[in-house]
């Protein structure tokens, strides 16, 4: 299995706070890799470093064999990194369709003026983009019925799906999903899990997933990377990770031998 993405010794700090400390992992092409960890573990910081918002203090991000550490965020989007956000980041004043079409923006070549006249190649590109989006995104994610609605009136679960649609319209090589099912009910979660699996299986798109829903992570991921306090404390198949004692400790707390002395010390002062 070839690695499409490789993160090498990434470190990132904000003032005195180390958000990421020497983080390394790889994601295999066409697979689903999940990144899990308690709140504040650095998962989103890691995503932001990969998509180019944060400039890590050291380390590098390698995509398809090329070091992209110095590539600007919008360029990374053009070469195939798409993502969604933990808090739905759709443009609320626009319709579903406009939001999704923005996902195709980076792939079009026409400039401000030619698009203004809406002529020639700009028009052709636009038509092609539209039919592509119809087929591969809107029908695929079953959001045909809401295409012309404004975002603000949509149910939360649907908004998350529109955000996924917009990322898909970018025709990414890697799809980075930041908590795609947070706040969803069971049924919505299952729908989303199915879409993610379809995206991976039918399209061969590599998926990088941050998620707290352990049931879903364990079901659909082929590899799990566990972060805690900015460090990788374990990685491997869902089965391995579940049995890893360090991971269990991170999730369940330090255990009684650690907790009790702290409490007694506090009581003494």
């Amino acid at each position, binding site marked *: 299995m070839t690695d499409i993405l490789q993160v090498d010794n990434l470190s990132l700090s904000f003032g005195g706070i180390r958000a990421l400390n020497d983080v390394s992992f790889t994601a295999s092409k066409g697979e689903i890799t999940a990144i899990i960890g308690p709140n504040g573990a650095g998962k989103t910081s890691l995503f932001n470093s990969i998509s180019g918002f944060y400039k890590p203090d050291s380390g590098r991000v390698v995509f398809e064999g090329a070091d992209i550490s110095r590539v600007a*965020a*919008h360029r990374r989007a053009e070469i195939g990194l798409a*993502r969604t*956000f933990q808090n739905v980041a759709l*443009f609320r*004043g626009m319709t579903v369709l406009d939001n999704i079409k923005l996902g195709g923006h*980076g792939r079009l070549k026409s400039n401000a003026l030619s*698009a*203004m006249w*809406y002529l020639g190649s700009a028009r052709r590109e636009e038509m092609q983009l539209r039919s592509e989006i119809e087929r591969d995104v809107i029908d695929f994610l079953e959001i045909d019925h809401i295409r012309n609605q404004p975002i603000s009136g949509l149910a939360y679960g649907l908004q998350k799906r529109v955000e996924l649609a917009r990322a898909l319209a970018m025709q990414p090589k890697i799809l980075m999903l930041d908590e795609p099912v947070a706040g969803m009910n069971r049924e919505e979660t299952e729908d989303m899990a199915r879409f993610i699996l379809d995206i991976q299986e039918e399209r061969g798109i590599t998926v990088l997933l941050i998620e707290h829903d352990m049931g879903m992570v364990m079901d659909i991921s082929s590899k799990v990377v566990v972060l805690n306090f900015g460090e990788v404390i374990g990685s491997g198949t869902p089965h391995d990770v579940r049995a890893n004692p360090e991971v269990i400790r991170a999730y369940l707390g330090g255990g009684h031998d650690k907790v009790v002395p702290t409490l007694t010390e506090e009581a003494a002062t």
Partner: protein
Amino acid sequence: MNAPFDWIALAEFALIGVFSGGLLALIALGFVLIYKGTGVINFAMGEFMMLGAYFFYTSHVMWKLPMWLSLALTLAAVAAVAALIERAILRPLAGQPVISILMATIGLASALHGVVDAVWGGNNYEMPPLLPRKAFTFGEILIPGQVVWSFILAALIITAFTLYFRYSRTGIAMRAAASDPMTAYVLGIDVRRTQRLTWMFAGVVGAVAGIVVGSMTSLSPALGGAALGVLAVIILGGLDSIAGAIVAGLIIGVIESLTAGYLGGKVRDIVPYVTVLLILLVKPYGLFGTRQIERL
């Protein structure tokens, strides 16, 4: 001794007000574009107008180039200046407190003023009239032709921009970058480019407004101050609303015209502000402005 109330005069003042409101709305559009696109209130908007008028005067009157060529050259030149300003002054200030950026645009305004003064001197120049002067008559009401034509021109430009932002891909990308730069970045939108484009568009709008105002009055560095009168319009309309700019432009136009007609030109500058103040007491974000909700 009570003369009957002159309804014709009232209608005339009101109509002149509506028509001259078009130009106010156009200038307001320049402010709104930049505020919406980059979050900056550009106090140098009037200086874009001034530059436009001076560039046009130079190429059309002094160099005797044909009008359309002069217009094209002027718009291109002001757009270039706007892009340069964005690159050299605004971009390095990104992320600084709003008040610093505001001060920078005020400083920029005086600097541009100084440049114009140094290059062209403080004299008044006569611009050739560009818009047809033939008056329009509606029954007994008489409206100066330039006022009507400036309104039509402003309406055309504002409509064109509205359509551009609503339907063109770059326009939609500009809206996206304005409302959430970080997300726009992730979608592959070059936010720095859309911000540069925003400044260029505002420069073009300002230049057109400046040429029109200059051709209706006369050309002097004082033209730069004209845009400050539009502050009442953008505050009333809401800083980030094009629709607000239009409606508020017309309202202020009427108020100014009625005040000038009945109370004399001296109070003309005061009454719009007093009106705006009263309206803001009720609607603090302007008529159409986005309500900002601070989450604590």
